[in-house]
């Protein structure tokens, strides 16, 4: 499903180019879950952005469903994201002017794949029943993150990319959100690539990889 081969990425800084990824190889099968671990600044989010087509590698290839993302135009990459991917951000990035229900349905509607049954189920599973007409600012942090997860899963994406989805939450809430995330991913039949620095969060996933000095290696279980 996701095939990353020999990817290099560097950023220009006043002190010269800063190499973030140096020949990264990664494969993720359909329905599989993978935790991408590493220290702050190790390039985890960069790799996630490359996987989402939000950024392009300097060298190497990122393939999704066999298609090379790097060779696609920006509109085609946007279409791919819309139709095949779901994204969950650490900062939630909910739309403040839309209520809970509209936020939840947003990506499914953009992808043209809204399912009322699945949406209703998501609302119930996310514990947001009765809050459908509330706005994001009226929700707690945990509720906002659950809503962000629901939004990403509403179109049942082939691949869910999650960037520190529990990074902004307390331990108890983080645990609840993570359990819910994994259950819903399974129910949706999606693959999951999750960036995290926490071994506790990474533990329940099928595989764990660690990014260090621009290269990937197996992380301890």
């Amino acid at each position, binding site marked *: 499903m996701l095939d990353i081969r020999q990817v290099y990425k560097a950023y220009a800084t006043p002190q010269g180019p800063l190499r973030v990824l140096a020949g990264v190889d990664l494969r993720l099968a359909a329905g599989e879950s993978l935790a991408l671990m590493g220290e702050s600044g190790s390039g985890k989010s960069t790799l996630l952005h490359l996987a989402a087509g939000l950024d392009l590698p300097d060298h190497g290839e990122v393939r999704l469903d066999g298609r090379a993302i790097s060779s696609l135009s920006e509109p085609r990459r*946007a279409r791919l994201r819309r139709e095949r991917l779901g994204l969950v*951000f650490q900062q939630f990035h909910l739309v*403040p002017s839309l209520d809970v229900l509209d936020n939840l349905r947003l990506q499914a509607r*953009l992808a043209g794949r809204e399912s009322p049954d699945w949406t209703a189920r998501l609302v119930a599973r996310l514990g947001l029943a009765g809050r459908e007409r509330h706005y994001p600012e009226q929700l707690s942090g945990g509720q906002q993150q659950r809503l962000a997860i629901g939004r990403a899963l509403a179109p049942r994406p082939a691949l869910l990319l999650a960037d520190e989805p529990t990074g902004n939450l307390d331990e108890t809430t983080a645990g609840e959100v993570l359990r819910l995330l994994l259950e819903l991913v399974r129910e949706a039949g999606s693959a999951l690539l999750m960036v995290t620095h926490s071994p506790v969060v990474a533990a329940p996933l099928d595989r764990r990889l660690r990014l260090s000095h621009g290269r990937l290696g197996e992380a301890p279980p």
Partner: protein
Amino acid sequence: MSPLGVALATLLSHYRRHPGQLALLLLGLWVAGALWSGVQAINASARDSYARAEALFDADLDRLTPADSRPLDHEDFVTLRRAGLPVSPIVEGEVTAAGGERLTVIGIDPLTLPGDSALASPGAESGLEAFLTPPWRTRLAPETLAALGLSRQAAGGATPRLAGGRRLPPLAPSAALPPATLVMDIAVATQLLGRGDGLSRLVVPAGALAAAPPGYDLERAEQRLAPGELTASFHLSLTAMALLALIVGLFIVQAALGLALEQRLSLLRTLRALGVPGRTLIGLLALELALLGLVGALAGIASGVGLARALLPDVAATLSSLYGAEVGRTLQLPWHYWLGGLGVTLGGLFLAGSGVLWRAARLPVLGLGQAQAWRAGYQRQLGRQALAGAASALLALGLWAWLATRPPGEGLVAAFGLVAALLLAGALWLPPLLAAGLAGLGRWMHRRPLVQWALADLQLQLPRLALAMMALLIALSANLGVGSMVGGFRLTFLDWLDQRLVADLYLRPTPARFDEIDAWLAGRPEVAERLATASGETTLLAIGDAETPRQPVALFGITPGDTLKPGWPLKATLAGREAAWRALTGGAAFVNEQLAIARGIVPGDRLTLAAPDGGERLRVVAIYPDYGNPQGEVLLATPQLRHRFQAASGSLGIVLADGEAARPLASALRTRFDLDTTALRDQRQVKRVATDIFERTFAITRALNALTLAVAALALLASLLALARERRRQLAPLWALGVPRGRLVAVQLAQLGMAALATGLLALPLGLAVSACLVGSINVAAFGWRLPLHVFPGGMLLTLATALGAALLAGGLPSLALWRTPPRALLAEEAP
């Protein structure tokens, strides 16, 4: 809903949560559209009136005038017709309606008039036979009915009375005629005007004669100035003021768009991440702009029509008093007016929005959510703005230098360009100057933490407030400039009236009784001096030995006695005032400033004017100001004028001996000579009428200026309201650190007051420069006279007070909201 619709609805949902921004956007578009289209509606209606007047008088008729300038009479018509020439007679004069409005009467002979002339078409409701036979018909434009005190329903066949008691033939409205004009058969018109055998002119179809018959001059239709040409400068001035209002309105729009986009950066990033392509997002933002633009522009155009309806009577009065051009009091809007208004407002909107769209299109997807990235370029932008301001100032300097080399009265468009460049330079320099001033003050105030914080905070607010401040600066400068010009004009005009209206009573006898009344007054002991005037029309044939294009000029005769001479203003003389007056009595001439500027006449020149005995050569010994007169005028001593040009007698000014009252003499005159109320007026009445005309003349200028200023104040208010919530979040930590809410409110008002005061201070020199351009270049080109530049310290103080008032008023509402917010809520707002 399609994915595109979902994305658009998501973008628009921002306004549901921020209705203030939507209101701000629509407000900007609405006022910009209303003021622009209001003025264009006035211009379109005026052009419609001119078009009808031109069709009536000039489109297809050449004129024949006697080469020796003697009056035309019926004999000329008969002789020329017998010689086989297709001439037609016209009689023209003025009558006064019962309500006091002056109307032009045109008498025609439809049987000899060229058939395709607008004059000749008898109109649907009045056939040729009815027009030619008793009780005849009076054709007039529907909007003229109001002057006769009639409604449109009651008009057909009515025979309203005129001021003297005579009745008009039955009315027949015709939309093709210009306003304030009555057209009737020549026989009735002659009787109504008391003309006897006299004719006003003889006309022939355009191009029908290859050359003038012997003893006559042929004036081609295309040689005459049409009313539209005469008033072009006035309409250009109106358009310039409307453009100013449009620009101020668009400043609001740009401020609102910038704010709306900045607050949606995170939303844009999210939508991009969710798979909406960047180009689609820009397209959707443009579509949003178009949708909002359409709503705002349509509301603006509809309001503009209302505004035009309210202002049109004053504009019509102005055009009538300044240019003698009659404009209908009802709006006539062609189809292209609506499209034009929509086009200009939407075009302006896209111009204002293009910068915002361009910036949005260039932002990288991963940096979109960071407001810092958005603001990072502001310092660079300030530098670029300062450079652009310098370029604009250089352009202004260049235009000023070019105008200085041109003859007076030329370069109207360049003069407006100069004003625009000055205002633009000031506006562009304002934010860099404010930023530099704040940085300097911040360093100076480093020992006072709250003040230092307030200065630093104001610097952070500057990117969002700059546009509103720029709009305020432009409005204040234009207001001060135009206010100084109008104030200076008012002072000059009132002085000029005092100097010219020196008699206690003004009498306008009929020509037949002029000498009899004059002789009676000569025998009255209470009369110290009689100031007889005379008037006529002639043609300027040559200046010096060089023939010039023939130009009709007015002739006016005055009595240069002891009362009139000392105060009569002269702008330039050949050899001093005393010598000029002596020369006038001896047969020399003065010319008014308009004519002198238009034809480059200076004291010492000799003019050749058409006169009954051939050309009269007159030496010009002085130039005098003649405000409000649309025509070039040559002034002579009354006896000279009556003798050399056989001019008709005019009014009689009566100067009373010391201690004598006007009322007994006025009653004696009325009783003895059976004078009607309009024939005798006292000085105060005449001054009041003249001053009323002046005030109406500038009513529209004041109205547009005040509206522009109000719009700028609204822009500031709207910007502050839009920022209010975010401001409260920024102020919350200060409250938490122990600064009381009252102090925070005071700091907020002080910040705004300081920025406004700085804006007001910059508006002072800018406003004076605008005023200098107006009196030095634009007025000369538009009206033909030059005014002294007056500086009004009171007006300058008012400008500063207006700036402060607008800012404090605008800051008042958000401050009140802050004052009312419970401290806990402040922190709660700060939390996310």
